[in-house]
């Protein structure tokens, strides 16, 4: 079986501080409007009166998401120039900037909205798992910057063995089509009903 790198996200302990998002933006030097990782906030619920008592069922949770380096990436399949590629050695999906024509078709293909258009360069960009840091034996910047230590990375099969095989929570699109390489320990309010 081929090696596939993946992110792990321990959702229960995420406090939504967005440090991962900011660290990624800083590392990649992204312009306003571009994010390779984003922290999504979900909240809801309310108060119910049961037997003359007011009971709260409010909830809030966060989801830190970047490119999921899917096992069946639609962006790679659809890219007309072959600029969007999946690295054979570790399954990392990245954009070959030289070949990219900026048609934005990868942006239309990704259910997670991961590829981002860089207007200045006229090219697409996305999370590349901090390939430069990996090559230097370091961890991706989102992993090292998280103050709550809720983001980790590793080989997908090992992460699944350790944390389970949840790859979708409430608020995320179905994983069936692209098979995202992500493992999540879901927040109690975010467990997806499939």
């Amino acid at each position, binding site marked *: 079986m081929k090696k596939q790198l993946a992110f792990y996200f321990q959702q229960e302990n995420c406090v939504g501080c967005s440090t991962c998002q900011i660290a990624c933006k800083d590392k990649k030097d992204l312009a306003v409007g571009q994010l390779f990782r984003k922290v999504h906030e979900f909240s809801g619920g309310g108060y119910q009166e049961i037997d003359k008592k007011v009971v709260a069922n409010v909830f809030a949770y966060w989801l830190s998401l970047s490119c999921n380096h899917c096992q069946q990436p639609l962006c790679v399949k*659809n890219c007309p120039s072959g600029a969007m590629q999946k690295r054979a050695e570790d399954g990392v999906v990245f954009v070959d900037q030289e*070949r990219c024509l900026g048609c934005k078709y990868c942006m*239309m293909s990704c259910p997670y909205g991961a590829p981002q258009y860089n207007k200045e360069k006229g090219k697409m960009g996305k999370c590349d798992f901090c390939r430069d840091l990996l090559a230097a034996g370091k961890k991706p910047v989102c992993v090292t910057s998280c103050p709550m230590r809720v983001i980790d990375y590793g080989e997908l099969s090992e992460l699944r063995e350790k944390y389970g095989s949840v790859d979708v929570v409430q608020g995320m699109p179905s994983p069936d089509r692209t098979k995202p390489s992500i493992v999540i320990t879901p927040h109690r309010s975010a467990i997806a009903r499939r």
Partner: protein
Amino acid sequence: MGNEWSLVFFTVISQAGIGLMTANQLFNRQRLALNKILFCILSLTVISMGVSLTHLGSPFNSYAAIFNLANSWLSRENLFLGLFLALTSLVFFFNIRSEKGSPPVIGWLAVAAGLLCLISMANVYTNTAFAAWETFYTHLLFYTTAAALGSLVYAVLVWQPAKQKQDTAVSQSLVLGIAAIILQIISLLAYVIVLSNGSAAMQQSLALLAAQLPLLISSQIIAFLAIVGIVFCLHRYQQERIDNTNTLLNMSLFAIVITAVILRYLFYSCGVLPMGI
């Protein structure tokens, strides 16, 4: 998805060119106004290609757009549009070089390339993450636009010479145009029903469509008026009374162009991604 005007115009113009070539091959047995028709097809295709370049962030890399033919419908669309242009140019070249014109097989090959381009173009959108584009409507919208615009532009271009030569194919092309417009109206209604019963992303798309209801209704009123105009032209043509009806046919064609642009704009603007980073 926002306002993708370059994609709106690229798809509508290229579909008009492909539809016109198909109508010409189907109906123009007497080779009426052939140079004018072929020049029109080539102009539409070249203009559409030019417009498509304005959508690209790096147009100088556009040569690479056919590098992923094995997997990408967008690559296939580009290849078939290029082939369509090349084969239509060949037909035009033969036609201006000799009285006999081009061998029919080249014209039919151009039509085949054009139709394959149309199918690829529809598949480009059905294979995205936009739920609103994954339905049957994408295919029907693209094919009916090509049929309606192609047959009506054909009728406008051959109207006078066809009358002089007692050609009946103009009537057939007008009937095809009317059928395509009616099918488009019915498919729009079915699309709205599918969106209303669909996923959360489809419901969101429906809400976006509903927010532009005046524009949507206007487009359908314009389409209905165009049908009335075309039916009137057809009636006059069959009665051999064509004095002023050419103006009415031109106006009906203009109305159909407006409808096509509005429907395409709405198609792009109601696309919603399941989630965005």
